[in-house]
């Protein structure tokens, strides 16, 4: 099993930390993992993306241009990465702020209203965990107990009190992800 994932959006949406939690959780489950960020611009107010690979085998290139799954959280990233999904792959996106929806017919496309849901819950910070939940529903690569260990490892100690609400958000994300287009 090798899953090659791109997560892309604005800096500040929690793109890099979502990738980090996924990578940590994979590592805790004894998988090979790599996490390669677009560095620099995301700290300087621009788009951010991260490539995460989770595999049973030694990972060759941590840097890729074709992905099994693309998680897309803004329009620029949609423009950039829609074409990077492998045929038969998965594209998950939050339609909030998207003006040009994906047009591929050879992939499975899902939406998650994570921004709206986070606002409804009054917990803007769990936005990225809702999205992560959507991904884990579609690609159940990581067992829940290892997700918890991943959260414990990647969050600093002073934020460990937020782990239950993060876990709830992951569970909620699993519930609200919707199939938008079934591949032909």
């Amino acid at each position, binding site marked *: 099993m090798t899953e090659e994932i791109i997560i892309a959006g604005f800096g500040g949406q929690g793109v890099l930390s979502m990738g980090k939690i996924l990578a940590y959780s994979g*590592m805790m489950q004894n998988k090979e993992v790599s996490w390669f*960020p677009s*560095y620099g611009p995301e700290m300087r107010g621009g788009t951010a993306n991260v490539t995460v690979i989770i595999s049973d085998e030694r990972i060759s290139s*941590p840097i*890729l241009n*074709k992905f099994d799954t693309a998680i897309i959280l803004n329009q620029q990233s949609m423009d950039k990465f829609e074409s990077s999904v492998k045929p038969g792959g998965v594209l998950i996106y939050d339609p909030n702020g998207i003006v040009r929806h994906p047009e591929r017919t050879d992939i499975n496309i899902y939406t998650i209203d994570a921004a709206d849901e986070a606002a409804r819950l009054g917990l803007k910070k769990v936005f990225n965990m809702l999205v992560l939940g959507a991904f884990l529903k579609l690609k159940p690569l990581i067992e829940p107990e290892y997700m918890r260990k991943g959260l414990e490892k990647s969050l600093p100690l002073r934020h460990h009190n937020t782990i239950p609400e993060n876990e709830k958000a992951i569970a909620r994300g699993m519930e609200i992800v919707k199939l938008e287009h079934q591949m032909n």
Partner: protein
Amino acid sequence: MKDIRLMKGNEALAEGVIRAGCDGYFGYPITPQSEILEYLMANNTKERTGMIVLQAESEIASIHMVYGGAAAGKRVITSSSSPGISLMQEGISFMAGTELPCLLVNVVRGGPGLGTIQPSQSDYFQAVKGGGHGDYKMIVLAPASVQEMYDFAKLGFDLAFKHRIQVMILSDGAIGQMMEKVELDEQIPRLADAEIVKKYPWATTGKTPDRERNIITSLDLNPVKQEIINQNLQKKFKHIQETEVRFERFMCDDAEYLFVAYGSSARICQKAVMLGRARGIKVGLLRPITLFPFPTNELARLAKQVKGMQAIEMSAGQMVEDVRLSVNGAVPVEHYGRLGGIIPAPDEVLNVLEQNFIHSKKEKRYEPATY
């Protein structure tokens, strides 16, 4: 239980430096390697081993602090990225002239000038052929994983003191910034001053009545003596070329075509080899781990086996010159590189290899991947 962590390349290197029993780090921040200094500052380095971590006022100050520390027989290091390493060349040349051991880290970014903060491999010539003045070489290690960023800290110090030479870890922004699993070793204790006096009789540890003064200088105005100094340096480089070559073969045994790449490009080529094998192409990868000494003999051997070699670098073609010198015309050697912080993709480099060696020239020319 083994201590396994998920770390950035820069962080792993910093942890490796501490655990290798380093005495002092002197550096000045620059993207994409600032995490080295930040990690050393944030992880109780002084409390753990007594190692000094100092942010100097500039790169020029950093390298001269390293010069001073090394002269006293200490395990010292500086790190920077391309423009900062350019500033250090004078100090590096002086250390070459005085045969002082040290560890230097260049997490390369695109140039020339300030260039970009994105990854590049365009400092190969500077590292391998000598960026400073004079006939000198450094041992240059090219890590291709976060684990190697960690491992090469200790290896680098060991080689530096074994040969009294400067060792450079030539990494790039991709390896520095990405996170992978790292397995950590036990802490190696720092040497006590008395041990340094005993182990390194050349070090300026303070004159004692039983020996002459140790003087560290690269100046000798007598050309007869200066020629001998230079000849001895060259003997050392030759010895290193004969004894310290390191490389990794990936699917080379039955290869008809060969990628040659180091650092992050080698990881990309590893994936390209797997894609190529899936298409039925017998392709392998030779990854130089030491760039000086270069795996010249291994490439000459492989030149008798393969039909062509494809060098892949994030540069306009630097390492490829050493590949061509090694092969000496026995097989065609082609270069392909992306510049200015663009990283080539695995299918992109495989297409290049197919285009150069397998398809007839009449077929559709290859188009670079866009970003």
